[in-house]
Every structure is written in C-alpha cells, then in structure tokens.
C-alpha cells in the first residue's frame, strides 16, 4: 500500500462531492493513469467524471503532469478541469 493526498478542484470537486482525501492505494499504482482507473472503480460520478469524456488535468506535487508520469510515495495528486484563469 502507499498513501496519497488527493485534491479536487472546481467543477470536478463539485461533481465528485469531494475536496480532498487521504487514500491508501495498492503499491503497484505508479502513475496518474493507474490512479484514475482505481478511482473509477468507486462507480457513480467517480466513474463518469473520470472516464475521459470531459477533459481533466493532473498535477503531482503541484506540478502539471502527464498521465504516465511517476507518482512518488506520499505525493499530493490533484485532479481538476482544464484551467480558465486570466
């Protein structure tokens, strides 16, 4: 098992009904792609929102990341919609 700090923002946080959580994930979850698949197993909004039909972005330890980047143990992983500032 490894522990991750997950954070959700904006439309995605509203849809998931979750702002932040600490999760223990199986030790073989090494990338955002694997983490997303694991979260989708929760079903409901988790499955539909993270299916990829609506775009989302992932940040690992507060850096924008790609779906196959490595997630270090204890990392803060944020999932959110494409940004719209400025």
């Amino acid at each position: 098992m490894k522990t991750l700090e997950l954070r959700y923002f904006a439309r995605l946080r509203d849809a998931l009904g979750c702002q932040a959580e600490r999760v223990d994930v199986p030790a073989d979850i090494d990338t955002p792609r694997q983490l997303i698949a694991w979260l989708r197993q929760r079903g409901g909004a988790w499955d539909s929102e993270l299916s990829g039909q609506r775009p989302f972005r992932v940040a690992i330890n507060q850096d924008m990341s790609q779906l196959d980047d490595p997630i270090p143990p204890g990392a803060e992983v944020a999932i959110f919609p494409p940004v719209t500032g400025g």
Partner: protein
Amino acid sequence: MDAQVRISVQEADFDLTAEYAALRHGEQIGAIVSFCGLVRGWDGGVAMRLEHYPGMTERALLQIAHQAQARWPLTGITIIHRVGELHPGAQIVLVLTASAHRRAAYQANEFIMDYLKTEAPFWKQEVDATGGHWVDARETDQRARQRWEAEYDG
C-alpha cells in the same frame, strides 16, 4: 540576465501605477509593457468567482516567469492574479514585463498571458441569478499557447 520577479495571488485589487513604478528604475530599461485583464460583463451576469490551487498557483506562475526570462532578455517581470468574487469591470490580472528592447517586452508579456491561461490553476465561475456556472476552457487559449512551442522567437 537576472530579472526582478514578483508574483502575487491575492483577493485585493492591484495598482498598475505602483507596479509600473517598481519596475522602472535604472537607465537600461527601454520598454515596459503591461497587460491588464478586466472582467467583462454578460447578459444577466452578477459576478465572476475565481478559485485557485493555493501553493501550486504561485509555483506555476513562477515557472512561467522563469520560462519567459530564459527566452527573452528581461529586467523585470510582475504577475498579479486576483481570486475570489469579482464584478464586471474589475481588474483580474496584471502582467508587466520590462526590457532594454520593446520586442522582448511585448513577446514575453504575451507569452506569459498565454501560458497563464493554460497552465496556472485558476478556475472561473460565472455567477448569475440562478447560481454559479463553471466556465469551460477555450480551444483558442490552447492554440495561443501552442504557437510558442513551434515559434522561434523573432
């Protein structure tokens, strides 16, 4: 070249004059470009709410400033972005770039705004009488950023 870099994410309004004065010093600056973004009104619109990712936001803006600095000879960069509830007409973002040369100041400024729009974790919600509505990201902002990846700075 070492540029003076200032980043701020804040609820308070900002003052263009003060920020301009802070960058204008010495005799080697030939050009200061500023960009002020304002909240546009829309039919039935009441306010814009800006959410961000505290910690990552400052980090992302600093990285964007450093990328600009690596690409153009700049003497100063200021990026200020407001969060919270903002009404139509309000100032929302300020970017200042100072350089010996005007083209560097212009290009760096536009580069920073294009990257900010696609890389900095801010999200807008339009508020009207029926509540808040998340704004979708725009394809044109993606394209605006992507042209910097292809373009050799001229």
